């Protein structure tokens, strides 16, 4: 047998277990309520489940297990620095790694600011590990002075603060690849959640004397969304396979997966909001907490330009088919 695109029983088990957990502990109301706060309890519970260090030697898994977890977490729009933590598990060692894996040390990942500007840093009050992406490099940083807090559009607390680099990180490429894979799986799953909620609305809401979903202007964008998301999800899984096998095309596939997931998820955000209308942009409504998270994640990680360059490495993907 050649390719096999189904999760192993164990991977499917991870997906199911986290689904059960999120269903009980992290419904939409919880996500909406947690806006602006660190999800302390949920984070501890997730760590308890052993999810955070899953892609390390002790964790017993790899990128595929991360993908399985992130598909469940994304569907629930689970808060917190998930992909950042998976990234950190690839570049930290010893006690630091232990603490991050145990959910005791929070990771903050920010983009290098332009020029002398302050950095816009997530979780400035919680983070013990502060990392900065610049191109394809990652630097460890320390915070200088105290942050000026701002609300991020994803709802998480951010701060503007000066970061000082204390050293460059080895293994940045592998960390960034796992970040891309994790965030792709999450975005695709969150997008699927949007599609599902929107389709349910379209199946029941009456307008102009007909059910909304009867209109092609409603049905087709949703269908396009689910097609695009389905492809992105599979790309994330494929990249995870390549990552776990240590293949050369892993980074290109991971970047491709992120570009793809980013595009599909944002397309879905627009489609969903167009269909929900005003209801979609209320804070208490059924989709805004999903779309704001997608919107935030779409700007996370290495820059899109870097991802494009990485994805061009996909021109080596014919290795897969040759």
């Amino acid at each position, binding site marked *: 047998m050649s390719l096999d695109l189904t999760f192993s029983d164990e991977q499917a088990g991870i997906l199911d277990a986290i689904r059960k957990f999120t269903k009980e502990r992290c419904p939409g109301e919880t996500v909406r309520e947690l806006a602006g706060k660190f999800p302390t309890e949920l984070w501890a519970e997730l760590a308890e489940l052993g999810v955070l260090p899953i892609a390390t030697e002790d964790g017993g898994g790899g990128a595929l297990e991360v993908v399985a977890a992130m598909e469940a977490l994304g569907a629930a729009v689970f808060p917190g620095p998930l992909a950042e933590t998976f990234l950190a598990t690839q570049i930290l060692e010893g006690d630091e790694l232990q603490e991050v894996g145990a959910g005791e040390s929070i990771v903050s990942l920010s983009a290098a*600011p332009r020029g002398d500007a302050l950095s816009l840093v997530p979780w400035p009050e919680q983070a013990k590990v502060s990392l900065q992406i610049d191109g394809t490099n990652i630097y460890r940083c320390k915070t200088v002075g105290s942050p000026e807090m701002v609300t991020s559009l994803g709802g998480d607390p951010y701060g503007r603060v000066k970061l000082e680099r204390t050293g460059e990180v080895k293994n940045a490429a592998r960390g960034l690849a796992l970040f891309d894979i994790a965030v792709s799986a999450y975005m695709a799953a969150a997008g699927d959640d949007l599609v599902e909620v929107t389709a349910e609305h379209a199946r029941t809401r009456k307008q102009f004397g007909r059910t909304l979903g009867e209109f092609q202007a409603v049905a087709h964008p949703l269908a396009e969304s689910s097609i695009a998301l389905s492809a992105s999800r599979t790309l994330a899984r494929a990249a995870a396979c390549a990552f776990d096998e240590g293949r050369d095309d892993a980074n290109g596939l991971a970047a491709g997966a992120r570009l793809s997931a980013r595009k599909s998820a944002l397309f879905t955000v627009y489609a969903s909001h167009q269909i929900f209308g005003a209801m979609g942009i209320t804070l208490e409504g059924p989709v805004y907490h999903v779309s704001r998270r997608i919107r935030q994640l779409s700007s996370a990680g290495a820059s899109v330009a870097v991802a494009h360059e990485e994805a061009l490495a996909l021109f080596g993907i014919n290795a897969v088919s040759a």
Partner: protein
Amino acid sequence: MEFDWSVEDAAYRKEFVDFLGEILPENWDEISKHGPGSDLQAEFSKKFCGKMADKGWLTQHWPAEYGGKDAGAWRHAVVGEECWAIGEPRGSQYMNVNWVGPAVMQYGTDEQKKLHLPAIASGNIFWCQGFSEPEAGSDLVSLRTLAIPDGDDYVINGTKIWTSYVQHANYCFLLARTDPDSKRHTGISVFLVPMETPGIEVREIPSVVGARYFHEVFFTDVRVPKGCMLGEVNAGWEVVNFALQYERVGAARYARAALTLDHLAKVAKETGLMDDPIVVDKLAQARCICEAARMLTYRVIDTRAKDAKPTTDTQLARIAGTRTDRAIGELAVEILGPDALEYGSFADANFRLAMTAGVAVGATEVQLNLVARRFLELPKK
């Protein structure tokens, strides 16, 4: 054909821009960020409109017989462009002068004209619109709010939703069904309801568009005199369509978009991003989309300036405006990079504008249907 502003209109634009420079407070950006529904902006816009009224500018496009200056559609466009570009310092009063007033002129009784037109022209009054309902969405004609005659009054019961500017509104331009057995667009009438009438309750719906932007408004046995009805009984659909012609291009979205692009270009130059051909490319493309929307709006104004019959250009302009907001929202996020992650930031505000652009004043799909049917003469289901 001419594609330049007349000397007079260009001079007026300069005068108006200078006026804006003088009257807008230092922290205007901070104020306008909270949206026109906020207390801060409402307070300012009352003062602002008062000043405009003093200069005779607020309703200068109105006919002289109603206290205007017959200044014409292009002059009105100058005001619209400059106001919308910086975040509409007139607040909700843009509605008053754009379409509430004209609808009253067209359909009002002498008494209504005397009551409402000078009040609007004074810049001292706020309106809100009571169109959408919880079960109706873009489908206005399925509205259920009932107005039943009782003696000299009508008694109104029902719920409106997505209503903006309610908090400060003196009047509501309300659609209600006056024939309970009627369906679709028949049997609807327009009421000009004083918001202080007993029985009106308001609940804010927190939203991403700014403070106090959306509300539910509950009408429980609200009793208004028959003289509050605008136009004939059961002829409200005609009135609202007249009004919507003006509303749909009311917002000079391209003007705000152009200003945003100027800002983005400035940032791109300062940060060296202009050396990136991708950025040049995208800025140019966005500019073309923006100018295309401007052209379509100008066509509508041209028609209006010539007192010609409104065409589907109104819909075209509206849809193009939506596309512009979307293109620019995306671009802002790309150019401003990590800064776009801040809630309420310039880039974020544009993104949220983009998210909501297709929703207001009849969803884009409805507009496309209208273009398909009226302009392309495609059959209706």
